[in-house]
């Protein structure tokens, strides 16, 4: 948890002020008091369990074999990193996260640019765009699996047949989920996450100093010049922010994998594999080791995310 450690290194309750008169001390505690319930609550519920996970990750612990519980060093890590299932899960997690974030970021940027103009019904289009994000993730996954991608009665194949019939042709009816299981999950997630990216990028676009853009227009700059030299640099930190926050959420995705393929067809990602190791196989030691690996991977992303947020934050509070 280096990211956490880094940001809290100096954040531990400040030592008693140097001018330690009793009054100053009482004042400092009066200031701190409103903060303490939330802080203590978060430490107990998010930090303690992780320390326990770290401890269990060095133990041989399967709930089915309670007699064999004991310390086994790095064995769990060795097994997790050499096991074909978890290795494939690592690859799947990377592919899933990178493609969902990249595709929805690019789509989100294009749509945000489209919506950053005055036109009739802009509010309606914006509302329509947000809707996918407001469907419960489980419901969205069910919708994609059954109502859209089902080979017999899904909307995709329905439209294919309907359009094919118009041309008097009998187009093939692909079984999307078994032919491209990972892409089915990616499609469902892109549909839900594009609005997220779009919202943040649109907010970024609208915080752009308009007078400068107007001035550039009057000076005869082309739209492309304005985009590349003014809009894009301004937007960069918003792009970073949405990509990083998106990654933090998508890395942890469980719902879509659970509903659409139940981890089958080579689509199990790390959260799903950990869920299986712990919930189905009761391999507590190995599940914990895999959990620690996910945390380490997330910290790498999170460190960048925290840095980006703190840049934005400093600009805002300046």
């Amino acid at each position, binding site marked *: *948890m280096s990211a*956490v450690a880094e940001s809290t290194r100096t*954040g531990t309750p400040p030592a008693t002020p140097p001018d330690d008169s009793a009054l100053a001390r009482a004042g400092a505690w009066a*200031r*701190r*008091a409103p*903060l303490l*319930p939330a*802080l203590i*609550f*978060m430490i107990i519920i998010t930090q303690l*369990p992780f320390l*326990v996970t770290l401890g269990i990750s060095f133990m041989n612990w399967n709930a089915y074999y309670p007699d064999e519980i004991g310390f086994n060093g790095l064995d769990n890590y060795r097994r997790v990193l050499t096991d074909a299932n978890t290795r494939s899960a690592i690859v799947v997690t990377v592919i899933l996260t990178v493609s969902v974030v990249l595709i929805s970021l690019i789509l989100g940027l294009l749509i945000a640019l*489209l*919506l950053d*103009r*005055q*036109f009739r019904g802009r509010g309606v*289009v914006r509302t*329509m765009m*947000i*809707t*996918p994000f*407001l*469907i*419960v993730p*489980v*419901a969205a996954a069910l*919708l994609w699996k*059954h*109502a*859209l991608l*089902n080979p017999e*009665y899904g909307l995709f194949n*329905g*439209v294919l047949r309907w359009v094919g019939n118009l041309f008097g042709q009998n187009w093939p009816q692909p079984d999307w989920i078994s032919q491209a299981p990972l892409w089915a999950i990616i499609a469902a997630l892109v*549909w839900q996450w594009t609005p997220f990216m779009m*919202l943040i990028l649109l*907010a*970024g676009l*609208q*915080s752009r100093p308009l007078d400068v853009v107007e001035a550039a*227009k009057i000076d005869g700059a082309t739209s492309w010049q304005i985009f590349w030299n003014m809009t894009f640099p301004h937007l960069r930190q*918003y792009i970073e*922010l949405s990509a990083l*926050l998106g990654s*933090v959420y998508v890395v*942890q995705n469980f*719902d879509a994998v*659970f*509903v659409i393929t139940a981890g089958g067809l080579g689509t199990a990602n*790390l959260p799903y594999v*950990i869920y299986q190791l*712990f919930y189905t196989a009761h391999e507590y030691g190995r599940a914990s080791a895999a959990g620690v690996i996910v*945390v380490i991977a*997330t910290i790498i992303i*999170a460190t960048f995310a*925290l840095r980006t947020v703190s840049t934005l*934050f400093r600009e*805002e509070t300046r």
Partner: protein
Amino acid sequence: MSAIASATTPGTQQAQRIQHRKKPRSAIVLSGTAWVVGILFVLPVLWMVLTSFHSEPDAAKNPPALFAPLSVEGYKTFFDSGPWPPLLNSLTASVLSTVLVLLLAFPAAYALSIKPVKKWTDVLFFFLSTKMLPVVAGLLPLYLFAQAVNVLDNIWYLLILYTSMNLPIVVWMLRSFLAEVPVEMLEAAQLDGAGLIRTLRSIIAPVVLPGIAAAALISFIFSWNELLFARVLTGTAAQTAPVFLTGFVTSQGLFLAKVCAASLVVSLPVLIAGFAAQDKLVQGLSLGAVR
């Protein structure tokens, strides 16, 4: 959306009008594209609505039976299958955890903005970093603890975990709202001898109430959506709506209409909360970093 409002000042509008006159065709194409993209994104939801009002045989037709007679059969099946306990569990967990989040977050946000403690940015970033910690990494200890103290399948335990899930977001949001409270007015109130309660009510509340509402709605949405904790930590008694939904698909017979109906009913509270919080959604999702 103050940014939109400020973008429609007369001057800009005029500038835009001039631009429109200059290249009307590209403007029409761009607006048309925006409409088409918006419709494409909302289409699956519209399809879900239409399918939910079809009979099962009509819902399973290929090519799709767009104009089949409407029916509430799907909804009937859903409401006959005992959805109220899970829906009520979800409501309890989401509403009460949101109340708890606000009770913990408001004082914390106050101590991080209006009367900041030393090193307040570090504290703020500690809250944020907990949000980046994958849920799945703490799941096993939370499960073992629940087993040990006998709170498995207990909605109160789930509710406390949801509180920890949303507390960082809400602290960040409320802090950014509290930071907008004018300091001069606070000082003036203090000089006038206004007490804490009066200051809270007459100066802080008007600025912060919209923010509290938005933060509450976002916290509600995330709790309502949650699946992994609920799946692992609840059984039959404390089952939540998303878990109920995953078990709703049967392998026998036709089920599309009732699944669509169920998905819509379960999503309805989120849709309402989301549209209500639309303008503040960005700020919540970006942890207050973007306004």
